[in-house]
């Protein structure tokens, strides 16, 4: 239990690809200003899998959308921070250059593969679209490449399938086609936003295996956004836990599961019904996440935290460095990590 296993975890020596640095974003709506991201920072290196874990409303998807430049603005406004790709701040670039980087370097796949595919074009046409547009391929070349890509994501009979429409694909196959499409321009970073949430568990396992395999083969940086503690445990090298638009904890996967360093992470793990345990009462997190329109002063988790002290409702805890690449935004982080 005590040995720390970094065998497939440490990529900090490989090339730093993408870095989100102190990103602030808010939505200005008629109901008020919703503070969606409040200083989010994370990075991903080549060949590394970063899992961003959080519940709905935590800001995990919005961060990804900000990276891709697909947040609706208005009402969204980025009020601070940088998104650096190979050291270049995407937010400061010209529109054309930014679009180019986002098309060539970073791609994203979403939870709902059916609505991400256009129902009136064949799957092959849609996979080939970027190739024709960006690589100047002919229709025929693009089609050929689309077949190769479908082959790569293990869709049987790719030659026949390439001419079919999205509705002729099953849920798992659609997600494979989406992955094929996102890989068309050989991106360095792939963002997977809840890629398996809509899928059945046996299909989910297939897709996660595929993603992991492709990542290792291409040494891509993978940002996996999910709420599923199980999926994270199986593939992540490092994990960032988000709550109310903040990263509350950052750690190597093995470390995080061995000893959560933030009460929220701990509570999340305790409230998950596990396959290997049966019990009458699950530990729950009382209450609800705070409204982002009105985040309480101090630690946003304090109203739900069993360990909360007076200081927690007054002072916002800074993200503390706990060594070994771990950080935790809790006043009592050391106590948590050093408990037996």
């Amino acid at each position, binding site marked *: 239990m005590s040995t720390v296993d970094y065998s497939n975890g440490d990529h900090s020596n490989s090339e730093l690809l993408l870095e989100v640095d102190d990103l602030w974003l808010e*939505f200005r*709506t008629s*109901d*008020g200003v*919703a503070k*969606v991201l409040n200083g989010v920072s994370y990075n991903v290196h080549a060949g590394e899998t970063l899992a961003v874990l959080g519940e*709905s*409303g935590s*800001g995990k*998807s*919005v961060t990804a*959308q900000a990276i891709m430049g697909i*947040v*609706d603005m208005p*009402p*969204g406004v980025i009020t601070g921070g940088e998104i650096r790709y190979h050291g270049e701040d995407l937010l400061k670039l010209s529109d054309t250059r930014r679009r180019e980087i986002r098309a060539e370097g970073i791609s994203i796949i*979403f*939870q*709902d593969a059916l609505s991400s595919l256009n129902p009136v074009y064949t799957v092959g046409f849609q996979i080939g679209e970027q190739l024709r547009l960006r690589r100047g391929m002919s229709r025929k070349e693009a089609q050929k490449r689309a077949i190769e890509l479908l082959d790569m994501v293990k869709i049987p009979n790719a030659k026949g399938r390439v001419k079919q429409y999205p509705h002729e694909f099953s849920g798992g196959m659609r997600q494979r086609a989406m992955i094929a499409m996102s890989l068309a321009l050989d991106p360095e970073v792939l963002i997977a*936003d*809840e890629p398996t949430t809509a899928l059945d568990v046996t299909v989910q396992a297939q897709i996660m295996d595929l993603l992991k395999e492709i990542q290792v083969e291409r040494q891509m940086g993978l940002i996996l956004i999910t709420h599923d503690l199980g999926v994270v445990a199986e593939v992540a090298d490092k994990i960032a836990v988000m709550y109310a638009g903040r990263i509350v904890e950052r750690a190597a996967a093995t470390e995080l599961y061995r000893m959560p360093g933030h009460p929220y992470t701990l509570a999340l793990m305790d409230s998950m019904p596990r396959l290997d345990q049966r019990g009458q009462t699950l530990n*729950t997190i*009382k*209450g*609800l*996440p*705070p*409204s*982002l*329109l009105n985040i309480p002063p101090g630690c946003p988790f304090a109203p739900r935290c069993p360990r909360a002290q007076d200081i927690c409702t007054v002072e916002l805890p800074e993200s503390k460095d706990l060594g070994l690449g771990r950080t935790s935004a809790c006043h009592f982080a050391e106590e948590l990590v050093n408990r037996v």
Partner: protein
Amino acid sequence: MSDPTAASTAVDSAGAYVTAAEHAEPTTGKSRSLWSDAWRNLRKRPTFIISMVIITFMIILAVFPSMFTSADPTHQDLQRQMLKPSADAWFGYDFQGRDIMAGVAHGAKWSLLVGFFASLLTVLIGGTVGVIGGYAGGWLDGILSRIGDVFFGLPFVLGAIVILSAFRAAGLKSAFGLVIVVVLVISALTWPVAMRIMRSAAISAKQQDYVKAARALGANSFRIITKHMLPNCMAPVMVYATILFGATIGVEATLSFLGIGLRAPAISWGVMIAESRDYVQHAPHLLLFPAGFLVLTVLAFVMLGDAVRDALDPKLR
């Protein structure tokens, strides 16, 4: 366990914000229903108040035209043909020397009657047939939809000409009788549109889980339709009805223009607009006043429809 006083904010995947309103109102009062809540809400809406003021005025105008003018709308005097508005006649005179203000005042009745009853009847027939078809599904829906298609397939003007000419041949004379026939013809030819709107709303409402839950509780069809489906299907039909109201007044004008709609002794805005067509360039006031009243009325009903739709949707309060 959970803290029910905290309203939550949820971000959907598109990043849009859905924020639950935090109501601080006293909650110990008596039970409220959708309709009483809607009414409380309506009273506070400026669009509702403005539209009600206009509509009330038009209704008063329609019921008591002589409060506003003492002139006889049918009295012709070629001496004052197309005279401009003046202190004597605020709206001027038309091509046959009739007082336009008197025409507008007396015409309000017929225009409003036709518009109101035609759209009401259309929505009633179309809505009922639509909700029944959408709820029942199967062969009943098939038959009702095909019947609707048959009516929908009839070219409107041709259908109206055929039916109205038949009544004309039967020797219908009274203005009121004519209004009824015109209303019936308009509704008979437009209800399939209302039916289609209602039917598709009903089909989507029927598949909602709350309908399933009500059936599991043992609710009968009447309860499911009235309590669960209608309140959730009304909005699109209501919007259509307000648009239809304006359109029917126009349709009535078209039919009058073709000589098969209302005619003297009945005066309507539609008739007046139709008659002004040839003189618009020399005497725009012939068109301006009846058309202005028409536009104002239609606008008021559209505003009313919007306000009612929003008030009936708890999410928009």
